[in-house]
Structures are given as C-alpha cells and as structure tokens.
C-alpha cells in the first residue's frame, strides 16, 4: 500500500516534466510542530496538531481564509439563501461538488463520500471527536453523483457546521467503509494514511514523531503544489521549535510559538526567518467563581447549592479586580505581536465585536480602590481588605505554562496593591483541562476563586459559544461536572437571549444579540477578559505564500507555498 503510493508519486514526478510547469520543483518543505502528530484522521484525533497535519491531505468542502471568510474548496460556490443553496426555512443546505474532482488514488470524488463521512462521524460507537459539527443533522442525502443535501431537524441560521473548516473534512468512502463505529480505531492503515484530495499525500508516518508527504499527482491544480515533498516533524518545546526556524534555519515553518516576546525577537534578529501572527477568536480570560469553593462545604463546593461566593458575589469586588489590571503590560510581557488588549469575551469577527466595554483598556487603581472603599471593604491590620470578617483572599489557578505564570505574578502584584491577597496555583495542563472526575484540580470543578485559560470557537458563528453561559450548563456533581459555564453565571435574561438567537436568521440581528450577550457578561463581570490572543508561528525567509490564519488550519493554503526565488 505504502509502496504503491510511493510508486505513483515517483511516476508523477517523472511525467511531470516541463508540461506541468511548477509542481514539485521546489524540493522539500520542512515543518516543525512541537506537539508530535499521533494520527492523521481528525475524527479520532486527540489534539489540534493531528487535525492540522491531516489538513494537507484531506479537505472539507469549504475552508476559512486568513480573514475568516469562507472559501470554496471542493465546490464551485458556497450555498446561501440568495443563490438557493440554503432552503428558505433554513432546514437544509445543498452542496454541489466541482466537476472532475479525483482522490489522490485517481478515483472520482462523489456525493457518496460526503454522505459517508457524515455517517462515519455520527456513528454512536465511533467516539468521533468532531461530532459537534453535525449537531442537529437529521440526514445527508445524495441527490445525484455530485450533489449532496444536508437536512437539519431545526432551522439553522448558520448551516455551515458539517463539511466546512479543517475539523470536518471529507473521507474516502472506499477506504473507510469497513471502519465504522467500534471498528474505527482498528483501521490503523487508513487512520495513518488517509486518501485525500489535498495537495499532498502521506508517504510515511511514524506516529508521535514525523509525517512525510509527497505531492499529490492528481491534485486539481496541475501547477501546484510547488514542493515535491514535505516533512512534518514533531516533539520538543515551543522555544526550541522557534530556534530551529529563526536561529539555526534547519526548518521552514514552526507552529504555535507561545514564547516570551523578547526571546522570539532575539531569535528573529538572526535574520533567517520571521514571526507571523494571526487573530481568530481566542481570548485569554479570568473566570470569576460566583459560587463558594470553600472546602468545608464538601460535596456542595463550587456548586449553586453551596451558596454564593463570600466576596466575589459582590460586583464591586469583581469590578475592582478588573480595573486593577493593565492589560497592555500583560501583552508586552507575555504576548508581543501575538496579543491585543480586549474587553470582550467575544472579540471577533468584527460584526460581533462590541465596543461598549472599552473602558477596561486603561488601568485605574484609584477607581478600583474607591469602589472597594465605598462597598465597605476596608484594609485590616495586615493590609488586606475585609468586611464583616471576610478577607479578600483569592486562590488563583491556571495551567502550567511560563507565560501564564508570568501573567499570574503580575496580576497578583496589582491586586496586592489594591489590598487583596492572592495565592497562585498552577496545574499540569493534562489534569486541568482533562476533566477527570476524581481530580479536584479540573477547570470544571473550579475549586478556586479565579481561574485563567483561553477559549475560542470554531468557524465564525458564535451561537454555540455564547450558549456556554446558560444556567443549565453550570457544572455540578449531578452532571459529572460536564458543564461549560465555569463562572456559574445564571441570569434568566441571558438565557432568553440565547434562545432568541437560536431562532434569528438575519446576520445583523444575530450580531446585535451576540453583542448584547457579550455586554451582559462583561457588565456583570462574570468573566474578566484579558487578551485577544493570536496564533503565532515562524517561517523561514525563503518560504513564500504563507497566509497564516487562526480560523482554520495554519496549513490551509499549503498548496500555494513556495520557495522564494
């Protein structure tokens, strides 16, 4: 199988000659992902790195470009209500595949492949990681060989969940037909070398180490890709990944370099490569625990039943905490070009971004102190503010990451100027985000007063994201702590807005609703947004055509990458 692939590649290389002007003329492209790739089937992946590595091979019907706009990939145009692709009642969307599309093995891409992909991911025993893209999908119909219609059980104002974006690519039916449901993990060959429509195909894969690709001889654009082969190496850490591109020049591209800006700048000064960044929807935020995390409460700790937080339930305290933070300093110290100050939990796309909360962009210590004084929180003998015997003493937790620990230290200092005591705690990322029932340290259990992490949403539609803060989504022991409403924010008005957005179709109205929800969360200070984070990567000066995006895979346009001449 592997051999066959290689042979086709070699053959293609031989026949390419002068007729195919550019394909495979630029030699090898070397990419470094410091998290090693484990599997090349995004539906079974355990992290972003797997999805990105697969994106050079298998493609969705449409992707997001560097500006967050949808671009057609395997179709000629994106269906909308205007062009009749989306039905008037918003309950179905019809995609028409481009003519003449073939898989890398030369067989035809048909609607059966698309329908199969949906069935594969929606199989109840498959454990598909991307199944949320298929939410509310009732059926996927093959209208004819190149037309496929997705029917939803409810009206979908944003019907671009299935088959759009890197998380939802199309699989080859012939290859995966025997891999449905419980059989999915056993198809090692298919999972390690999916047949795709993308510019490259897998020639060798060493799990958790390195992927080798060669150019796809059947790629739809005969002039692309410019590179004949790609090596995607994994492992190590972000700083050394940056070094290998910027300082030693051994690699052409390195991904996700969250490293202190001065280190990146110093490496970039070697002149071998440059640092690029791109903004999506990621926001580094502080979640405020509105419930009481006191260990004495036992099972009721950090739940609604345990009662409100002894001091964070006072909005004056929450406002003061936010006012004391100078977000620009946090950007300068930890993020550099990969961060911007933000006052919203929903910072992008532009039509959704509110400007009502921009006051937070400037630090105001005096106002913060005054707020606390007025609310009756006055400094005690030890300099820590207290009221009725309740001291303002905060346990502030986050995952282990040098930039996060620096942010923690800085914020702790500002809060101590306010007269608030802070204890810092950092937890191994695998535990913090792991959601293990027995661990007290997960971000869902939130056995602390403040916690910090980044979240974002896939694609450009914030409906699902804004529904994170529903009353019904508050984590509790009853639902195995599975909720996503970490601040334990519960506001019937907010819930009503979420419901309203679900039935609103017009983009402008949806934007207004999303902004209103964002402002409600911000004015209630249930979440303290800190930084609008961008993805940051580095590429060699000799590499051209990189259009980095945070909305999709960073390799989304790898077909256009080429060597500078």
């Amino acid at each position, binding site marked *: 199988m592997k051999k066959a692939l290689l042979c086709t590649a070699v053959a293609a290389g031989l026949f390419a000659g002068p007729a195919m002007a550019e394909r495979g003329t630029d030699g090898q492209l070397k990419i470094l992902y410091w998290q090693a790739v484990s599997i090349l089937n995004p539906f079974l992946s355990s992290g972003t790195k797997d999805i990105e590595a697969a994106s050079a091979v298998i493609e969705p019907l449409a992707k997001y470009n560097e500006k967050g706009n949808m671009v057609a990939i395997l179709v000629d145009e994106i269906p909308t209500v205007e062009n009749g692709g989306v039905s008037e009642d918003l309950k179905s969307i019809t995609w028409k595949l481009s003519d003449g599309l073939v898989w890398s093995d030369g067989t035809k891409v048909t609607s059966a492949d698309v329908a199969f992909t949906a069935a594969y991911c929606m199989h109840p025993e498959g454990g598909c990681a991307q199944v949320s893209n298929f939410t509310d999908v009732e059926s996927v119909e093959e209208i004819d060989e190149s037309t496929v219609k997705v029917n939803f059980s409810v009206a979908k104002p944003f019907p671009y969940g299935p088959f759009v974006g890197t998380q939802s690519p199309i699989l080859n039916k012939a290859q995966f037909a025997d891999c449905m449901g419980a059989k999915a993990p056993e198809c090692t060959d298919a999972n390690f070398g999916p047949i795709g429509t993308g510019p490259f195909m897998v020639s060798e894969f060493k799990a958790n180490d390195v992927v080798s690709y060669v150019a796809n001889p059947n790629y739809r654009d005969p002039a692309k890709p410019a590179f004949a082969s790609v090596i995607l190496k994994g492992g190590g850490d972000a700083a050394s990944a940056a070094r290998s591109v910027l300082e030693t020049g051994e690699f052409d591209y390195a991904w996700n370099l969250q490293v202190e800006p001065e280190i990146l700048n110093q490496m970039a000064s070697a002149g071998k490569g440059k640092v690029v960044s791109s903004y999506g929807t990621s926001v580094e935020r502080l979640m405020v625990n509105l419930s009481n995390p006191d260990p004495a409460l036992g099972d009721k700790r950090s739940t609604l039943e345990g009662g409100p937080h002894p001091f964070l339930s006072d909005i004056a305290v929450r406002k003061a905490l936010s006012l004391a933070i100078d977000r620009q300093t946090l950007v300068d110290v930890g993020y550099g070009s990969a961060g911007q100050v933000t006052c919203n939990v929903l910072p992008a796309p532009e039509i959704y971004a509110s400007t009502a909360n921009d006051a937070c962009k400037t630090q105001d210590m005096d106002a913060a102190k005054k707020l606390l004084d007025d609310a009756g929180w006055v400094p005690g003998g030890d300099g820590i503010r207290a009221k009725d015997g309740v001291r303002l003493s905060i346990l502030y937790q986050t995952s282990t990451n040098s930039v996060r620990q620096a942010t923690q*230290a*800085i914020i702790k200092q500002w809060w101590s100027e306010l007269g608030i005591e802070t204890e810092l*705690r*950092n937890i*191994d990322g695998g535990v913090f985000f792991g959601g293990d029932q*027995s661990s007290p*340290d997960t971000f869902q259990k939130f056995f602390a007063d403040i916690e910090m992490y980044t979240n974002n949403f896939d694609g450009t539609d914030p409906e699902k994201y804004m529904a994170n803060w529903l009353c019904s989504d508050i984590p509790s022991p009853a639902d195995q702590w599975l909720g996503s409403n970490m601040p334990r924010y519960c506001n019937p008005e907010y819930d009503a807005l979420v419901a309203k957005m679900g039935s609103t179709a017009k983009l402008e109205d949806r934007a207004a609703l999303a902004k209103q929800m964002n402002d409600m969360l911000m004015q209630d200070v249930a979440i303290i947004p800190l930084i609008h984070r961008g993805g940051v990567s580095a590429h060699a000066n000799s590499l051209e055509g990189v259009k980095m995006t945070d909305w999709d895979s960073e390799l989304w346009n790898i077909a256009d990458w080429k060597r500078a001449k």
Partner: protein
Amino acid sequence: MSDESMSNPALATEEMPERRSLWGDVWSQFRTHKGAMVGAVVFVLICLAVVVGPYIHTLDPQRLDILNKNLGPSWAHPMGTDNLGRDTFAQVMAGGRVSLLVGVVAMLLSLFVGTAIGVLAGFFKKLDGPLMRLTDLFLALPLLPLLLVIIMLFRDTLRSMFGPETGIFILIVFVIGITSWMQTARIVRGDVLTLKEQEFVVAARSIGTPSRRIISRHILPNVLSPIMVSATLGIANAIITESALSFLGLGFPSDFPTWGRLLYDGANFMQLTPSRVIWPGLAISLTVLGVNYMGDGLRDALDPRIRGR
C-alpha cells in the same frame, strides 16, 4: 523489619558515652583534611549567604518592576533582573533557602530509607527477597503518574493540616525521599553481601556478637563510602527534582523561587540574560561540590585504617 530499622539510631545514642572520644578523633582527623575543610567552608558560606544575605540585599525577590526587565548586572541588581523585572540576586538567595532545605532533608530521608533497607536485605537472608522485590517495584513505578496521584490524594489534606507552606514542604520532601532511595538500597546491599562473609564479621559472629551490634560496629562503617557518594548525588537530585515537581503543580507556587526553578525558567533566556542561569547553576554545583568534599573528609575520618596514619 521496622523494629530493626528503628533500632539503629537508638543504638547510636545508647553508645554515645563510649564513642565520645571516637567522635573527637573523627573531628580532629576531619580538620586535617584540606578538601573537607574547603568544602565545609564553601557550604557554610552558601548557607550563611542565603540565611543572612536577604537582610543585607533587601530587595523583595517577588517584587515585579516591569520597567526594569531583562537588565544586566549593575550595583542595584548585582545579578541583573528577569523578564518581569524581579531581582535575580534576591531570587537566588530566597531560592537557596528552599532548595538547600529541601535538598538536605530529602537527601537524608532517602539515605536513611535506602541504607536501612539495603543493610537489612543484605544482612538477613530472609528479608532479602521481599525487600529487594519491593525495591524492584519502586524502581518500576512510573514516576509522573505516581506524582499526579500523590498530589491528588494528599495535597489538600496536608495543606489543611500544616498550612500551605509547611504542608507542601512535607509533601515534596516525602515525594523525593520515597522515589529516590532505591539506588542507595541496592548499592548498600551489594556491599553488605560481601562484607558479611569477610573474616572480621565472621569472627564477630562466632564470638556471639548480636546482629544489631555487628551491623552498627562492623557493617555500617564499612559501607560509608558508597553512602557518602549517594548523599552527594542525592542533594543534586533533590534540588533538580523539586523544580520538576512545581511544573506538575506539586511544588511551591510559581512565584516562589527555588534554584532548580530559576535555572529552568531562565534556560530560554540564556542568550539574553546569561546571569539568570549562571548563578543558580553555579549555586547548585558549588553546594554539591561542598557536600562532596565534606563527604570525602568524613569518610576518611571515619575509616580506622586511614585515621591515625
């Protein structure tokens, strides 16, 4: 088993009066050992620096000064500042207190456990099998998941019993001690196996000397040199392990400096502010060197064949 291991220190105190002159001899021998004295002086100086130093160089190690970040050495900041503007000199001194304490206590714990198990396993044939299989077990356990389990089970309990700092200290020392005694145990056992067949031990046994006395008088002094090497290596190991623990969230809070942590955090800044890594690295190395020479001296001083030569 616990009976035997407990009896050793008890025995030592019991025999103190008789040994007073011995310890006097040892001390005078130790003083003539040049390397040992230099080692001791270096070690004492480092201890003094971290204990007294912060009263002379009074900058708060946790105080941030963003405007003065990544500075080179100057009079105000003899070792420069880090990327948050914290004073490296103050951090090295504050970190030394923790690192030295953790290093020495954890090393002593692991040495005690390792020696006890090694001597018992080597000397008593019946105990050899079980104790060595226990050693195999500890060697085989995967360290990282084990640590995560320990954090989960004990952190909050200890925290509520002893307060955040003492609780974490006990936990760290316990964790390092319990995961690093195996090498000492295997080495000591190997030496004891040969020793107990040697003439002087056989002779002692044949005149009816009780086992505990054979161990304390004849076996222990003769396995001292590998124990001393283990002690030196153990301190370095404990200081480094401590910093690894804080990444798992088991160690001290992230703004609490220790030598291992300073070295790790500073590693990426090596080219920008080299003093961030040179000084903590040097501090660890000097401490280990000091302990090593003191160990050499002590071993020579305790060896009756060398003493008095």
